[in-house]
């Protein structure tokens, strides 16, 4: 664990105790069993808003606390441990980051207070095919008299069913632009998806949707760069959640190694399993370093943010993949039952892996950024 400030320690402890009491995995199970199309419990989101979590990246002048990405990561890690579902990552990290990075004073004033108090759910609509490929955007933004007209479809939009607004990534001639679009605007049609991790994704189709030029983030010419910096932050945020999900999988597995008896002794006394646990633990420590360093690099405005974020996403992906599989393997038959929670972790791991680029995507990107 990084060396935390007193404020960060307090916030982390508050999150841990609140989640343990109010949002444990049993709540996620109940949500899944209810067949909710929203993908989270409104009361949970309301409580998070009251604790100020959606405002962690929002400047104080717009109703937030501006505590930075490492602090946000601490919360996401805790939520990841218990699979607590909410629009926090999609809106308060990705949405808020877009406005911080590219929003004009007017845009920030319009959108950030709502994000901070949880009434606005602003989510990024980027992917168009089954793979994350920001280099190839097909959704078209054609010039109109007062801005642009959008036509195209976005897939697997996070919190797409509950979003009150979208940041739509569109191809405008040779430029890529990011547009703020109210979810109630004419010409928007969304289809909520039923997914393995039971969260709230939707496909969203835009048919002749009008965007005023004042709703475009930043300059069109620098839209591509804005998108890259935004995706870096999104990747680091997902990595923090993945670290938490993996850490909890490890803790559950270690507990089982110490209590499950076979052949007259606890199975953790077998060297094959002891060494596997040692290697998983070592990998977890290494992954933690990568995730925290990426969040710290963003907070510090470091030169190598893109490398660090790809590193964090790739590393946490590799560890969570291995850990969520070992969670089931080491639990044996019980791990295969729906009654036990292991399956939830395995399913969430698979979903997090595809978000904002999988390991292969970020390994390739890291090589490119390294000049080969």
């Amino acid at each position, binding site marked *: *664990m*990084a*060396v935390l400030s007193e404020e960060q320690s307090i916030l982390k402890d508050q999150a841990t105790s609140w989640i343990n009491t109010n949002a444990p995995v049993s709540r996620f199970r109940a949500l899944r069993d209810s067949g909710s199309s929203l993908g989270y419990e409104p009361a949970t989101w309301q409580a998070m808003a009251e604790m100020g979590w959606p405002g962690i990246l929002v400047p104080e002048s717009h109703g937030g606390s501006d505590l930075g990405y490492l602090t946000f990561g601490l919360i996401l890690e805790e939520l990841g441990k218990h699979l607590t579902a909410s629009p926090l990552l999609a809106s308060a990290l990705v949405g808020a980051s877009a406005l911080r990075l590219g929003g004009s004073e007017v845009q920030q004033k319009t959108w950030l207070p709502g994000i901070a108090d949880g009434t606005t759910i602003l989510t990024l609509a980027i992917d168009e095919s089954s793979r994350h490929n920001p280099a190839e955007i097909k959704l078209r933004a054609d010039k109109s008299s007062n801005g642009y007209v959008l036509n195209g479809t976005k897939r697997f939009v996070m919190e797409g069913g509950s979003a009150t607004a979208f940041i739509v990534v569109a191809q405008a001639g040779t430029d890529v632009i990011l547009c703020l679009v109210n979810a109630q605007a004419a010409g928007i049609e969304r289809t909520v998806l039923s997914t393995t991790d039971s969260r709230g994704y939707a496909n969203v189709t835009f048919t002749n949707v009008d965007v005023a030029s004042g709703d475009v983030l930043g300059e069109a010419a620098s839209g591509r760069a804005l998108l890259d910096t935004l995706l870096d932050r999104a990747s680091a945020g997902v990595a923090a959640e993945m670290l938490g999900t993996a850490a909890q999988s490890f803790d559950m597995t*270690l507990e089982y*190694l*110490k209590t499950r008896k076979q*052949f007259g*002794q*606890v199975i*953790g*006394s*077998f*060297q094959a*399993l*002891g*060494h596997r*646990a*040692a*290697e998983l*633990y*070592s990998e977890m*420590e*290494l*992954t*933690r*370093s*990568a995730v*925290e*360093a990426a969040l710290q690099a963003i907070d510090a405005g470091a030169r190598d943010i893109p*490398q660090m974020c790809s*590193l964090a996403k*790739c*590393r946490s992906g590799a560890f969570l993949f291995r850990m969520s599989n070992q969670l089931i393997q080491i639990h044996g038959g019980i791990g295969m039952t729906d009654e036990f929670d292991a399956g939830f972790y395995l399913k969430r791991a698979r979903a997090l892996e595809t978000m904002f680029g999988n390991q*292969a995507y970020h*390994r*390739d990107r*890291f*090589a*490119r950024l*390294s*000049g*080969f």
Partner: protein
Amino acid sequence: MSSNPAESADFRAEAKAWLAANFPKSLVGKASVYMNFEGEVAMAGDALAWRQRLGEKGWGTPTWPAEYGGGGLTPTQARILQEEMAAVGAFNPIPMLAGMGVTMVGPTILEYGTEDQKKRHLPATARGEVRWCLGYSEPNAGSDLAALQTKAVDKGDYWEINGQKVWTSGADISQWCGALVRTDSNVAKRDGISLVLLPMNQPGVRTRPIKLISGSSPFCETFFDNARADKRDLLGKLNDGWSVGKRLLQHERASQTGASPMPSGSGGSSLAEMAKQYVGLNSRGELNDPDLRLRLAQHLMDSKVHQLTLARITAEARGNPKVTAAASILKNSATNVAQTRSELTLEIMGSGGLGWEGKEFSEDEIGAVQTWLFGKAMSIYGGSFEVQNNIISKNILGLPETTQKG
């Protein structure tokens, strides 16, 4: 650890001034000549003078107490000194010259030694005048170190030592040895071991260098045939050598947590640069071998993560100078990174990475082959990869011992 910024600034100025007055300009850029692990380095002229000045000042062992020949500096001051030395191209040859003296034996004497032992052994070690080796492993006691059989018998005013040690680095050029010996054969194997300090230059001690798969090596076999250790040179309590010796190994592990404990044979150029030269880039600016490209990216990420973890654990351990339990994690991670780097280096060099000697191969190529081969020892020495995993599973994770029967 409190670090007062004003004091730090004062110390930085002091270090700068002292280095300007004492570090011979002729030695700038010569670190690699004098920082050679693999054998004895002749210190003469300016190098000798520099070693002597550093030793007198105590800055070869900056954090040791001044009364035992150290610099008496705080960890922060020691870091500042290191930064200032790096800034002017200076280097500290004393840890290298002292063999295992500065990194392992010295810290253990500071922790467990008697006042007499500290006074007799530490100052000369701190001046880089005495080289130490360690007698730990034996032909039948490798990973199962506690099975060691070299015996020490109490002969009144000295210990009489008989047995054989192996993998004693630098035994043939060392003046002193810290050896684990059996002092009681009638108790559980870990309860009858003691750590003694003995001089190497005596009739009862014989050494023989070991040739390795990589060629010549610093390792030796060491034979004790009625060798003697002074009665005063038992380090720690009688039959408590297992704890003292384990503590010493923690210092060893802590010194092996960097990813490149051995000088690299691949010169200064980075692996990525080397890959570009040997393999070439395609029109998209990617390495011509797409499979190698991704494995190289993965390795560079692993290497970076190792460095980040080292930095994180160091930051977290600040104020707690005790050797951290994370040393086992870091040692295994350092080993993985270094061994993978060597494998990738040879793969990148292709048939160039098969050279043993001769002008047809570059110095880098021949060096890389030796580094690759010697690097196989990294997962064996200082507690093998598997022994580290035992330590992690038992000491950090609290998993129980295996009961032999399944």
